[in-house]
């Protein structure tokens, strides 16, 4: 089961409880166990990372736990990976070079994930 957790009604992201490949259906669950409609992934979403539940525009707020966890820095499509490359903190943001390294490591995880699916 491709289980994803949406923590609050207000949230525009859900967290992956599995490694999900590209073009796969993410099964979105609320904390009370209720299952919502699926979201198709545009790229691999590694375990623990977040998928966009709808289109999010540059400058929009990102909600998780029903609270603002950051601000969108480039347009995000429904089904995209939501992370440091397209979101920044409103208090202390991660330095650019660290963001590059984080995304490099995630890219490797994504490539390994794709290789596994062949």
């Amino acid at each position, binding site marked *: 089961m491709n289980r994803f957790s949406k923590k609050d009604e207000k949230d525009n992201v859900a967290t992956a409880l599995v490694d999900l490949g590209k073009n796969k259906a993410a099964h979105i669950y609320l904390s009370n*166990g209720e299952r919502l409609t699926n979201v198709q992934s545009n790229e691999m979403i590694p*375990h623990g990372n977040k998928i966009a539940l709808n289109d999010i525009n540059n400058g929009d707020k990102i909600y998780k736990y029903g*609270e603002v966890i950051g601000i969108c820095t480039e347009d995000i499509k429904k089904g995209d990976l939501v992370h440091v490359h397209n979101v920044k903190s409103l*208090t202390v943001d991660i330095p650019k070079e660290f963001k590059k390294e984080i995304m490099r490591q995630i890219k490797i995880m994504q490539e390994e994930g794709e290789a596994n699916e062949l």
Partner: protein
Amino acid sequence: MNFKGYRREDGSIGIRNKTLIIAVDECCDGIARNISEKVKDSVVLTNSYTCMLGGNEETFNQMIAVGKNPNVGGVLVIAMGCGSILPEQIAEPIAKIGKPVDILTCQKNGGTRRTIETGIQKLKTISEEINKTPREDVSIAELIVGVKCGGSDTSSGMASNPSAGNAIDKLIDAGGIGIGGELFELQGCQENLRKRAVSEEVFNKIDSLIEAEKSRWSVEGTNVETMSIGNSVGGLTTIEEKSLGALYKMGTKPIKDILEINKDFIDKPKESGFYLSETTMLCGGAGVNFASLGAQMVLWTSGAAGFNNPIIPVIRISGNEDLFNDDMDIDARGIMDGSDTVDNVGNNIIKKIVEIANGEKTQLEDIGSATLTLYQKDQRLEQLLGSCKNK
């Protein structure tokens, strides 16, 4: 719910009956450890900073407060004899609340070998005296439980932290006290904390202590890690996301006050409810901070490994499928795949709290205990930061 605890002279309830050796300077650390090896259930607290008093009053206050912790039955204070901190200064306030306390100075006692011999005799005498303390039936309303996280990943915010928070809420419903800390990691949670604080005054105090902690750690020209690369590769995007997940372990009850740990005093919680505190985010120092606030136990949420403390037992909670091992006391993994609920794991934690209070050991108690680290806010740095702010 009741457990069998040790009632101390000052009315507080211990869940362990330890003897504590306080080495007021690092030079007598080896002497303290040699004595401790020969006396069962004894623990060593060493001041490794300095043997000088000026500027280190916060450490001095903590040594006294740990001696007063209800899990400590009696205390032996030792000093080399050439430093500024006199053992009497530590021993007297602890003796005042009715605990058996003795002192020993290496220089006055004929050197290291004789001090070890005399120390073993003195500590054995204290140990025999406190072993007469009976365990009596008391309510879990007597419990003060600290809550702390470490090695956070996505499962912390979703499974182990909400479970710890659920248990803290239930403990408070039963009349107990919960204490959180890690102010640096509450950045971005201010609006949430404003809603939870019992008054605007309490919120302002919380806010100013968070700001002070921010200024301590964010000094230009030095690096500070609010997020490790590992945190982010694991899926945490911003400090807000990490902090909000961390806040779950502190439950949902109103925040009664924030307990200060400083050079002038150490606060104590006064009545049932939830309190924030100046307990550091650094795990070793946090153990001693919690002990100095009077906590008898700590809930620790994580992936795995980490935090232990020889005075106040640590209950470990993990929901991480990959890292879970037999160091853990509570299994929260089922929450991640939907086969278990936060409420059920919360009930398991409460059950475990009562068992541990009753004398049962945690998975790692007495195995590979961590050092009791005395962490303090350096008074010299505090002054410098203060002068920076005034410019």
